[in-house]
């Protein structure tokens, strides 16, 4: 169940989807009350489950469901108002002046309280909705910006121009942008020499320790340009350098000399 100190991921996943028996859930619930780390991991699994839930095929909401819901909350709002204590018959003795004065004021006070409570609910819900709307707008803008950057970097029709000293003949170059924490890498290469049939260029991440990690295969276009965008890489591996080799089609698990291009990575920026 636990590794001695924390709940295993397997059990947290099952707990998140309520797939454990009550007897198995109880000690986990106790541990979660005290362990922020496990609560955070549980939240991650709940987030995964939200994705799974939201992947279901969309169904049309039954006709009238919206009105039924609005009627229900209207009835709930009405039920919070105080009901009259009793019905006064026209044959009943006239209420005394004292009662006649207090009843309207009490009713007004009760209605004011109900009104304040309802207003508070409306404000709370509006705040939630506004925050969500802001988040969606920000995310949409960020996605659009990221898409634009990717489109420019990877468009076949994009012009790739390397600016160098006027007397320097163009030579193969590449620029790598690497975010170790996310395992995200983008490489833009230019002026690459044509590659023989059956061969490919292969990009390598050379970590501070350990063997070079293959980071994608590429072949240049007619102008010698190529790019590698977000290859599969492990996260959290700081790079000491990057290199490009020529390998047989399909790539290699280890780099084959000579190294065509290489560059040392500066100190991590994050």
């Amino acid at each position: 169940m636990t590794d001695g100190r924390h709940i295993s991921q397997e059990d947290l996943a099952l707990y998140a989807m309520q797939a454990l028996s009550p007897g198995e859930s109880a000690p986990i619930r106790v541990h979660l009350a005290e362990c922020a780390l496990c609560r955070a991991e549980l939240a991650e699994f709940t987030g995964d489950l939200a994705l799974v839930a939201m992947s279901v095929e969309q169904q049309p909401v039954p006709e009238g469901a919206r009105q039924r819901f609005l009627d229900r909350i209207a009835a709930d709002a009405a039920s919070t108002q105080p009901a009259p204590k009793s019905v006064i018959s026209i044959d009943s003795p006239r209420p005394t002046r004292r009662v006649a004065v207090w009843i309207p004021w009490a009713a007004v006070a009760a209605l004011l309280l109900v009104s304040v409570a309802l207003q508070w609910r409306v404000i709370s819900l509006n705040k939630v909705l506004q925050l969500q709307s802001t988040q969606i707008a920000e995310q949409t803008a960020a996605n659009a910006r990221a898409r634009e950057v990717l489109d420019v970097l990877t468009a076949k029709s994009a012009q790739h121009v390397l600016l160098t000293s006027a007397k320097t003949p163009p030579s193969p170059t590449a620029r790598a942008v690497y975010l170790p924490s996310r395992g995200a890498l983008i490489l833009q290469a230019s002026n690459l020499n044509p590659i023989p049939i059956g061969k490919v260029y292969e990009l390598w991440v050379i970590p501070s320790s350990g063997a070079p990690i293959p980071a994608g295969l590429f072949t240049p276009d007619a102008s010698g340009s190529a790019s590698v965008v977000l290859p599969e890489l492990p996260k959290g591996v700081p790079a000491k350098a990057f290199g490009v080799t020529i390998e047989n089609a399909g790539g290699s698990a280890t780099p084959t000399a000579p190294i065509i291009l290489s560059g040392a990575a500066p100190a991590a920026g994050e």
Partner: protein
Amino acid sequence: MADLFDRYSGMAYSVAMRVVNDSAQAEDVMQDVFFQVWQNPKAFVSDRGSLGAWLAVVVRNRAIDAVRRRKPSDPVEDVVLPAATNVAAEVEHRTMIEQVRKVMKDLPPEQRESVEMAFFEGLTHAEIAEKKGEPLGTVKTRIRAALITVRKAFQT
């Protein structure tokens, strides 16, 4: 509140339908969850995950409760999502939902089946193991692996 209902009722109803497979019961579940939000808006902690994602999990849990004909298992306040980075608003975007569907579709069949049996049919891991004739540990590992795969697909 009507805006909230307009925005999320389709998703909430679809999740409930996937679990209970009965239109009237699915609407009951959806209505109850929205009503709870109306009664207690603070149950949703707005700085932790998106409201849509939170509703999806709460509706699923309530739908499973309905299928099992039991009292609500946990208060809705117990459903906590990670901070709004991965699951947040982006997943409400149609393209992201399509991406989740693809990730689910591409899972190894035995992993997908185990997750669906636990999440949408409400079976315990012991029930799944018995139904599939497989060890408990195997079922646990498959479910964890499937969820991690879904998570990684959105950690770019």
